[in-house]
């Protein structure tokens, strides 16, 4: 007798529905929205890192492309924000598709280096083209208009993001259980074996890279419109590492792990902000402790502990 795969999804939806009535003020609402946005990005990244077993150390670059597309195109060229968002997605998708083939010939640390290089190059371009992008100080982003209605209030954004999150979780669960998902997991297990079994390894790698990049670009645009302001730091190396950390700490190849990782690592800097000067040390120590004692990530480790017992 198998529990519905979607039980976790229902729990997530239930929490999302209750949360606005429990949160004390708009700052916590803002935090929740950021957690949800990160969760969606991490879901996409986890497909790449956890399920397909690849590495991306420059994912924030794709966030940056989406965010700046939504900032620059409407501001300097008069495009409608939705169109700009689409443009960001298209550009990111194309870039990912073009680069995926040569990049995925590399393995292990060489792959990490290539994706790192990509992210850094994007960051540098954003920083330098100040006339378009406002340079290191960033630029403001016009609000997103949907059906003639400008999205500016926190409450409205919350529901938009909650909807997106629910859809993303549902999509991920379905993807993993589909032939596509099984091919991915086979790829992770052994590339050569899956090739022998008939899986077009290259095509799947490209596909998953493009999918996770597009997730990122979309959420980059969403973040840009939500915060109303975007800076090149959004696309820098540290942000890329933060995202990878969320994947790993939550649990690679675990959909709910992605959510937990995103929630924890978005809240952590806020919780540590009172530690005057010791935040870096505390953050680093927590990272190390988590990885040393729970190398597979929070959710898989705890699930194994509680799961087997029953």
């Amino acid at each position, binding site marked *: 007798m198998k*529990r519905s795969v979607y*039980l*976790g999804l229902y*729990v*997530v939806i239930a*929490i999302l529905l*209750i*949360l606005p009535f*429990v*949160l*004390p*003020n*708009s*700052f*916590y609402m*803002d935090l929740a929205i*950021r957690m949800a946005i990160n969760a969606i990005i991490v879901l996409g990244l986890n497909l790449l890192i956890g399920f397909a077993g690849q590495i991306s150390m420059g994912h924030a670059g794709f966030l940056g492309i989406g965010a700046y597309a939504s900032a620059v195109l409407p501001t300097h060229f008069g495009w409608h924000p939705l169109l700009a968002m689409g443009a960001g997605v298209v550009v990111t998708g194309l870039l990912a598709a073009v680069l995926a083939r040569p990049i995925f010939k590399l393995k292990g640390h060489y792959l990490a280096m290539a994706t790192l290089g990509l992210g850094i190059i994007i960051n540098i371009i954003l*920083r*330098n083209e*100040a006339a378009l992008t406002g*340079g*290191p*100080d*960033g630029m*403001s982003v016009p609000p997103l208009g949907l059906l003639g209605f400008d999205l500016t209030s926190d409450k409205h954004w919350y529901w938009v993001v909650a909807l997106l999150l629910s859809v993303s979780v549902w999509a991920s669960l379905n993807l993993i259980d589909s032939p596509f998902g099984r091919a991915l997991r086979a790829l992770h297990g052994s590339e050569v074996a899956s090739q022998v079994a008939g899986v077009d390894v290259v095509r799947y790698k490209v596909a998953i890279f493009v999918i996770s990049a597009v997730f990122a670009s979309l959420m980059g645009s969403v973040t840009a419109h939500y*915060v*109303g*302001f*975007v*800076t090149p*730091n*959004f696309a820098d190396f540290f942000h890329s590492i933060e995202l990878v950390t969320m994947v790993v700490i939550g649990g690679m190849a675990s959909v*709910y792990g992605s959510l*937990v990782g995103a*929630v924890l690592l978005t*809240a952590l800097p*806020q*919780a540590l*902000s009172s530690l005057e000067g010791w*935040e*870096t040390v505390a953050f680093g120590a927590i990272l190390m402790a988590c990885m040393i004692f729970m190398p597979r990530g929070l*959710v898989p480790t*705890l*699930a194994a502990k*509680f*799961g087997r*017992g*029953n």
Partner: protein
Amino acid sequence: MKDCFLLVRRVLGSVKMIALALATSIGVAHAQESIRIGSILSVTGPASFLGEPELKTLQLYVEKINSQGGVLGRKLELIHYDDAGDSSKANNFVKRLIESDKVDLIVGGSTTGTTMSAAPLVEKAGIPFISLAGGVVIVEPVKKWLFKTPGSDRYSIERIMDDMKKKGITKVGLMTETSGLGQSSRVEAQKAAPKYGITFVSEESYGPKDTDMTPQLTRIRNASGVQAVAVFGFGQGPAIVTKNYAQLGMPYPLYHTHGVASDEFIHIAGKSSEGVRMSSPALLVVNELSNNDPQKAVLAAYRDEYKARYKEYPSTFGGYAYDGLMIAIEAIKKSKDTNKEKVRDAIENTKGHIGTSGVVNMSTTDHMGLDIGSFRLLEIKQGKFTLAR
């Protein structure tokens, strides 16, 4: 079972958030009586050069004022966050200050970037924000709730251009930092150059964390007709440029702006800083000011109090924070209240306030209240700042 456990996890997560919220609100209840001053400063990160002395100054004077009975009989409470020079962190923390910590006003924003990222929030929420950054864009066009204490970058640049003109220098090489300050300074410089008959025959840039700028300086040296070099940046970058400059034996005058107006610059650049000219607020040369100078008393007092507490000479950046706090307090005293509208109006009506950057006269069209007089021209002689002749 996995799902049961997950449900418990998520509930625990929510409980944690609620607990955090309760704790914060209890904190608020206790401190009902105090005047809450919020601050976001770049204490760590690339702008820590600015943020650290600013924080130290705010802490020093909040303590001092509280020990003297506070303001309007109420204690001051400083709530500060470190944005590490990152504008989106700044935006996030300002939200927290406004919504969660419920501060009465904000004195902070070490850099133009962090200030501007907070601007929309501050305008929407209707809370006075006194910025400690120098970008012209902060007060042009004037925004209702946004003020600033440093003299604008534009005046700092014009001050050195004025000296160049006096010396008959018309062809200048530029070393611009890729930071926000560097880039906006370059824009201001290009706007102001024609007024002083100056053209830029060579423009190079460097990153704030770069360790060797000899390639760029070599290119400038090879540009024809160059008569002087100006560096726009802050922190350690310009100091390394200065060291490289001396190493290469470049013979022309070297100019810096207020982004490096502090003892740290001389400390890092060492002997190579000899002869460097810099625009800076008068704090660094208090002793040389004549006794008639309106700023002398205020500057001397700030210097002595900061030195007594922190055992080092204050930097001009700390001075910006000092001015911000004092203007805010004066406004609160004048309006006899912490009502945000009243305090804002009082800040806007600041007249004749003597600060570390000069005498401040604000108005509805001027939310800074300073002019080119807020920057003096200094020269470094034998490891010390002196007024240039």
